[in-house]
């Protein structure tokens, strides 16, 4: 069997760390090859080496059997390597075709031949079953479509080997199925695919082979047919991992959060949350399922005081907290693990210790008569770091230099430690690896078992189904259904999230 890509004994060092050591990646023609590893395992480094952004210290790269020296991305392009980025590189105000031809414009007499370009795009789109409208504006099409435009971009540039970087992170279940179809069509047409992911389910579903990396070391390559998710997970993490989060039956008691007829406008002044009703009781986890942009962010901002409400009421333990300033909401007993840990959760240029008291710095014993007590702060930080297994050189290390998982653990430690009556966890495991996810789920369930109310927002259906006691489906700013995770399926949830079926039954308590 012929290999289209061979990366042999790759070693890449950065000052102080070895990012890749002795990694082998051999991709056969016409296969989907998964690259599996935890965050910070060295997947991106390896792909950046392949893409010519980094030069390896040791090792050899062969494309179609010939040794090559990829010193910059243009060479990678010429060799037929294309990358579908996780964060799309598209210009919102341009049309699909304009985005695709950007940098490779077809010109005649100094003018762009848009007709010809559109026809070419249409042709490629048809051949691979992408059904993209070449004239549509990027800002008008869905995230799934935008991803297809990214795929088209690489195909237009003649890519034979496509690298997908965590492609399903932003998609709905239906869109994921469609993407899988597209990947299969690409393979049929003779392309080869490298799929970077840490989602085991996807690997089992579409991939032929999988190469596992752990802490920069190549662990090995397996045939997907001969393995199972448990084996992959333990290879990736280096220990046994339990998947099914084990938890006792929920035992809901008094109402903690009561939202009635809530109206919230987004930054453009458009209604984002429309007459929403929701309640959460002590000792239960309510998961909010929905496609991104259906009012979830605005809902959480309204509860936590970061955004003004335009009507309705939010009650915590029977007391109105709508339109209170954030500090009052926090002091009333709300903990908030924010969606974007870099933007809201941490001051990256503060030490991890200072971040641990970001919500309590002004209270005794951390502050007395307006003067900070560093000793108390860092003693506290040290104990939280230990309790929540935050891996950091010390409590004085800048938050910026920690890995995503450890940053998240620090935030969770800070919020859980205050023991809030209501804990809001917005995408608490986004971008984290299996080990960290397991830990975080356990802590959320712990809180529930101690009789606290937990509101979980996630775009990962698996997480919602695993952790929640009740699932509230949000669509266009309304809770359109409340379902029991034991009785529903991902399929049903997906349809509800897309607004395709309405299910008010069993709904509003």
């Amino acid at each position, binding site marked *: 069997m012929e290999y289209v890509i061979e990366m042999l004994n790759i070693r890449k060092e950065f000052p102080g760390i070895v990012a890749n050591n002795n990694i082998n990646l051999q991709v056969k023609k016409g296969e989907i090859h998964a690259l599996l590893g935890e965050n910070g395992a060295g997947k991106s480094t390896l792909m950046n080496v392949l893409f010519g952004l980094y030069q390896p210290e040791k090792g050899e790269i062969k494309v179609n059997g010939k040794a090559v020296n990829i010193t910059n991305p243009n060479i990678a392009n010429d060799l037929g390597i294309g990358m579908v980025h996780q964060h799309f590189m598209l210009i919102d105000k341009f049309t699909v075709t304009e985005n695709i031809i950007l940098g490779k414009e077809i010109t005649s007499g100094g003018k762009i031949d848009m007709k010809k370009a559109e026809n070419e795009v249409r042709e490629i789109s048809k051949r691979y079953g992408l059904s993209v409208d070449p004239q549509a504006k990027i800002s008008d099409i869905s995230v799934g479509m935008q991803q297809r435009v990214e795929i088209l971009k690489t195909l237009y540039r003649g890519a034979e080997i496509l690298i997908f970087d965590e492609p399903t992170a932003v998609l709905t279940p239906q869109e994921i199925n469609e993407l899988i179809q597209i990947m299969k069509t690409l393979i049929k047409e003779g392309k080869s695919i490298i799929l970077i992911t840490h989602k085991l389910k996807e690997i089992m579903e579409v991939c032929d082979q999988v190469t596992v990396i752990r802490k920069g070391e190549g662990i090995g390559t397996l045939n997907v047919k001969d393995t199972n998710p448990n084996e992959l997970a333990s290879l990736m993490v280096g220990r046994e991992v339990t998947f099914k989060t084990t938890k006792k039956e929920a035992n809901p008691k008094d109402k903690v959060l009561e939202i009635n007829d809530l109206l919230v406008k987004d930054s453009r002044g458009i209604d984002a949350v429309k007459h929403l009703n929701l309640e959460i009781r002590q000792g239960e986890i309510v998961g909010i399922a929905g496609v991104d942009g259906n009012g979830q962010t605005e809902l959480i901002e309204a509860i*936590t005081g970061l955004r003004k409400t335009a009507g309705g009421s939010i009650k915590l333990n029977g007391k109105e907290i709508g339109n209170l300033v954030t500090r009052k909401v926090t002091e009333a007993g709300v903990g908030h693990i924010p969606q974007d840990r870099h933007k809201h959760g941490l001051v990256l240029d503060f030490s991890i210790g200072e971040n641990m008291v970001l919500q309590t*710095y002004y209270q005794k014993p951390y*502050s007395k008569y*307006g003067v900070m007590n560093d000793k108390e702060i860092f003693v506290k930080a040290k104990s939280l770091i230990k309790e929540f297994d935050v891996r950091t050189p010390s409590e004085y290390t800048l938050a910026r230099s920690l890995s995503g998982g450890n940053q998240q653990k620090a935030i969770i430690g800070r919020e859980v430690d205050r023991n809030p009556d209501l804990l809001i966890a917005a995408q608490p495991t986004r971008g984290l690896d299996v080990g960290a996810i397991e830990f975080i789920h356990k802590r959320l369930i712990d809180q529930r078992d101690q009789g606290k109310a937990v509101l979980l927002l996630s775009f990962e259906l698996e997480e919602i189904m695993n952790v929640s006691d009740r699932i509230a489906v949000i669509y266009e700013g309304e809770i359109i259904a409340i379902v029991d995770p034991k009785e529903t399926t991902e399929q049903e949830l997906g349809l509800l999230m897309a607004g395709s079926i309405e299910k008010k039954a069993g709904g509003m308590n």
Partner: protein
Amino acid sequence: MSSRLQNILVPIIAVLLGVLVGTIIMIISGFDAVAGFVALWDGAFGESYFTGETVRQITPYILAGLAVAFAFRTGLFNIGVEGQLIVGWLAAVWVGVAFDLPKIIHLPLAVLAAAAAGAFWAFIPGFLKAKYRVHEVIVTIMLNYTALHITNYIIRTVLSEKSDRTESIAETASLRSPFFESLTDYSRMHWGIVIALICVFIMWFILERTTRGFELKAVGFNQHASDYAGMNVKRNIILSMVISGAFAGLAGAMEGLGTFGYASIKGGFTGVGFDGIAVALLGANSPIGIVLAAILFGSLKVGALNMPLQAGVPNELVDIIIALIVFFVASSYLIRLIIKRFSKKGVK
């Protein structure tokens, strides 16, 4: 190489490069570089009189540097130190000429008036930024001109009768120090240096020790996270500008109550406020760094006056050297790259 060591090395290398290029310029233009630098040194420290004058110059530089750095550490760019300094100068002199009080009240009152005037002048851009998101750089630049012309108007019509300077301030409001003067062969060195050094400590204490400083820094680094943590972002932005402006106003008091003892009509800016930006930049916005940078710039400025007399080198050359130092600090990325290269070679 540790980043801390690099932070110290970068300004030093920038200064050396500035001097080096200055030397080359001197040689190309046909001057004796060695004589030029000897004259520069003599002009700053050669006699006790010159040393006293150097310290006098360092004093407002420290305060102007603190003003820029304080705002910068909290995420704001205060280009208006010059204007705040000018209004501070006027306020100090106004109190100095208008009242007849015992020294123990009069002097502190005049100093505080300067701080308050500077603080008010900086409150305007702070308020506009917090409330209406108007960028502070634009407002502070405009307010520099406004300060210049308003103070000129007040000096001409309110504090004097169409004269181009005010009366001299009462002795009870003066920072002049017969002790320092006798020590330095009757230079204009005054008590202000003590105030400046106290302010260095105050800046450090506010930023590093107080709860308020924690908030101010948090807002400077990340407004979203500060908002999330329940801090009042708008109030902190205004407060940061106000404190910064108070330092700038005090720099004006140094000139008004110490060096000159009066305020005069100005044809243009004093330049001290703008040099404060360079001081803060070279001092990496740290209190100690600012003192060191102010000493360097103050010495260069005063020493330069001696260069034409002793070596026949035009004193504008020092302006070029200062500009070059600022240039090299600003392009510290380049210097870091060079350090990296060298340390890599050392390892191999």
